[in-house]
């Protein structure tokens, strides 16, 4: 798996962990352990999103940074040049955007 796919897989995993924990905390607002885990994983997710945006393209509008998201690895015809990066990268519902995760997750899921 290349760097892009490894990072995407990690982002998917940590984000899902947070999605699940968020609902848990909605009904258990005083649970210390869950809050600690949320804090740690949230931090991790922010770092991963930032490194993915710097290297490839922004996945959220908060990661759009026109000064730093213009690496030569960006999936765009303007790679390496300053440009509007929000439309870079594969379309989320296409197989190309999801190929990354399949090896690891599909084996367990199917």
């Amino acid at each position: 798996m290349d760097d892009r796919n490894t990072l995407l897989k990690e982002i998917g995993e940590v984000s899902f962990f947070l999605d699940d924990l968020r609902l848990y905390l909605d009904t258990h607002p005083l649970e210390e352990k869950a809050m600690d885990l949320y804090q740690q994983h949230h931090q991790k997710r922010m770092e991963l999103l930032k490194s993915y945006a710097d290297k490839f393209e922004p996945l959220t509008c908060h990661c759009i940074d026109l000064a730093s998201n213009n690496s030569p690895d960006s999936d765009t015809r303007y790679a390496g040049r300053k440009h509007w990066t929000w439309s870079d990268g594969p379309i989320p519902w296409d197989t190309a955007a999801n190929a990354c995760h399949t090896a690891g997750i599909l084996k367990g899921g199917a």
Partner: protein
Amino acid sequence: MWSYEKRLQFPVHITKTCPKTASLIISQFGGPDGELAASMRYLSQRYTMPCKEVSGLLTDIGTEELAHLEMICAIIYQLTKNMKVEEAKACGFDAYYVDHTSALWPTAAAGVPFNACEFQSKGDAITDLMEDLAAEQKARTTYDNLIRIIDDGEVRAPLKFLRAREIVHFQRFGEAMEKIKEKLDEKNFYYFNMEFDKQFVKG
């Protein structure tokens, strides 16, 4: 206010075209217990929910259902984007093809178009949460049925993920129900509408 994230909650990677499978799974887009109905049901109910934590939970689950809607649409899209007319004809997908080509349009598997009656926003907290608990289980049953019918591992993987989320949502709605009950006089849980008859809600 929402903001978009350019990735699916769980990956959908389907390499084999199959309009037949798409015609069954489309029920989880526009059917009575589908993801569109789920999302809109929770996001409509939350405004008058008399307990702030429960409104918050409805927002978060309603938001996650939007991500599920996107996954279901990705599954249908990938199953049909390369279909030939003969394939559509052979499996009975031709009627849908005539009206929508291979675009996404919310309908139940049996052909009934999406109906806002599925929202079930009654304006009574207990009633609405009961509805939500049932809705999660109905969606789980639909996923069970789909997983029994469908053999393709690439399609089954995201369906199994979605099925598991229905169980988690059921659990969380059960906890929300307990929270709502704490705010009521235990003698009147089901006699009054706490959303409207506010005199029965504990201070």
